[in-house]
């Protein structure tokens, strides 16, 4: 049996808004094994993004615990969480969030630069990743010179740069047309099949969710189905 990449136990995140308690994630248990491709669906405010943020170590739970790639996140210092995100988590954003002044190649090299990877190795791996996502001729283009689909491909290449344990994608096709949505969905599928990448993907699109091997549905902060 594959090792556990995500193990969340009784995970809760409670916000106080206008004096009222909002349970964004409510007592969630979740396990993801290496190579799992999990898509999460649910109405707005159901807690999908909050769950992804908790797994991605950019938010801390109110209660409960998470182990990521075998490491307990409880009690980790901020700098240790930063290091964990840098090495073990790849984020893909709905609006790509690429650095506008950097080229596609530089955007993919950036996480490696921050992780202290030698410059030559950065360029080699970034070129390899951009070729893998289908942009071998767009290395030196800046985000404004690329289409939305191409930008998201760069975003995926960047997320894979440091060889993470898990890829977290929050509505990665939310800003794309249907044709590009399909292409990007298949790219995630390829990352899962060809590289054995563990993926957690949030979507409102049934077709996109369909490329994952497992579908979670959330409502009111809880996982209501896991199929």
């Amino acid at each position: 049996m594959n090792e556990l990449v995500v193990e969340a136990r009784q995970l809760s995140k409670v916000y106080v808004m206008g004096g009222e308690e909002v349970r964004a994630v409510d007592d969630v248990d979740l396990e993801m094994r290496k190579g799992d491709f999990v898509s999460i669906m649910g109405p707005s405010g159901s807690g999908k993004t909050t769950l992804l943020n908790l797994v991605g170590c950019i938010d801390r739970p109110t209660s409960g615990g998470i182990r990521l790639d075998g490491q307990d996140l409880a009690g980790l210092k901020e700098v240790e969480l930063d290091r964990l995100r840098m090495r073990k988590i790849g984020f893909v954003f709905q609006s790509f969030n690429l650095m506008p002044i950097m080229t596609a190649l530089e955007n993919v090299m950036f996480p490696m630069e921050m992780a202290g990877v030698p410059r030559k190795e950065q360029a080699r791996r970034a070129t390899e990743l951009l070729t893998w996502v289908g942009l071998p001729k767009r290395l030196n283009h800046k985000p404004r010179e690329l289409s939305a689909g191409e930008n998201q491909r760069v975003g995926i290449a960047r997320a894979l740069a440091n060889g993470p344990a898990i890829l977290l994608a929050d509505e990665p096709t939310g800003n794309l047309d249907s044709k590009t949505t399909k292409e990007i969905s298949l790219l995630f599928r390829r990352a899962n099949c060809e590289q054995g990448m563990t993926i957690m993907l949030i979507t409102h699109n049934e077709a996109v969710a369909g490329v994952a091997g497992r579908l979670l549905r959330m409502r009111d902060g809880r996982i209501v189905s896991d199929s």
Partner: protein
Amino acid sequence: MNGFNMSAKERKEDIYVLPKGARGLGSPLLVSSGAEFSEQRVQDIGGVLNVKAVYPFYTRQIYFGDGTGSVMEGFFVLDGVTPDFLVDLRPSLEVEAGRLLEQGDYLDDQLNVVVGAEIARSVKLQVDQTLPLEVGGLVPRVIGILKSTGGLDDYIVYAPLQDVQLALDREGWVTGAAVTVTDPTTTEETADAISNLSSEEFYCQTSEQIAGVVKNLISMARAIHLSVASIALLIGVLFVLSTMLMAVSERTKEIGTMRALGVHRITIFRLIVTESLITGVLAGGIGCLGGVGLSKLITWAIHKFASAAFLQAVVSPRLLGFGLLIAVLIGILAGLYPAWRITKTNIVEALRYE
């Protein structure tokens, strides 16, 4: 202004006798109105009680330059003095090259002159050269170049009194007289007695009065300088601060992304402060260059329109260094708050920022 102050201190005269209508602060250097009084009065002044010696002088501003309108072009002060003037009243003056005026230079068939250091520098003069001008048909010949005093004497051309009077066709007339007294405690009374000789022709200023006025002028200039500098500094800080706040605020999402990618907040803090520092250094560099340019423009304007060759706006290397240091400090200070503020922002909120 410091040069002016130092120069005033090194003058040994106790009283200046100035013709009615003369303006300035008594020094022959600053009397340029064209007003004059009869040289015969010098003997009367010498007879006043407590007067030790009288040194008449004839001062005229003279145009120099090559007519090209360069910064070197302007006016200098030609100061016709008696043989003992420099020896008795300017004992601290030393020559860089050549010699001081001597008895034999007086009523020579040519106009021998001793030039101040700045005049020599700006017109590139050497001993035995002639000045690029004529005074009453005579071409002044340099017999000595003074060492720089950092004061007004750097901008004066000294010549024998009688030669200047002859050349300018003003024999028997002087533009003022410097007076020394035997008892300095009664200088005021002596000045009053001199003025009373002929109050229609001349009036007196004591060195103490002049020193007081100069001191006030310097204090005022320093106060204005400090106020302007403080306001400029405040504006500079606020400008860089608002620029950095805006720049950082616009990149909230980028910074959130960097944080999500694992970049530590201290690294981002350093990046922002470094950017602010570079902005400050660049702005400081441009400001320093602008300052040098502006000072040259001001000097040119003073020489061209105010006829005051002895005044010039100077930007010293020390001042430039200080300006750059201030720019660096402003850069760092103005970057600290935006950097601190943005790195405190929650990653989730930063990623949602639009």
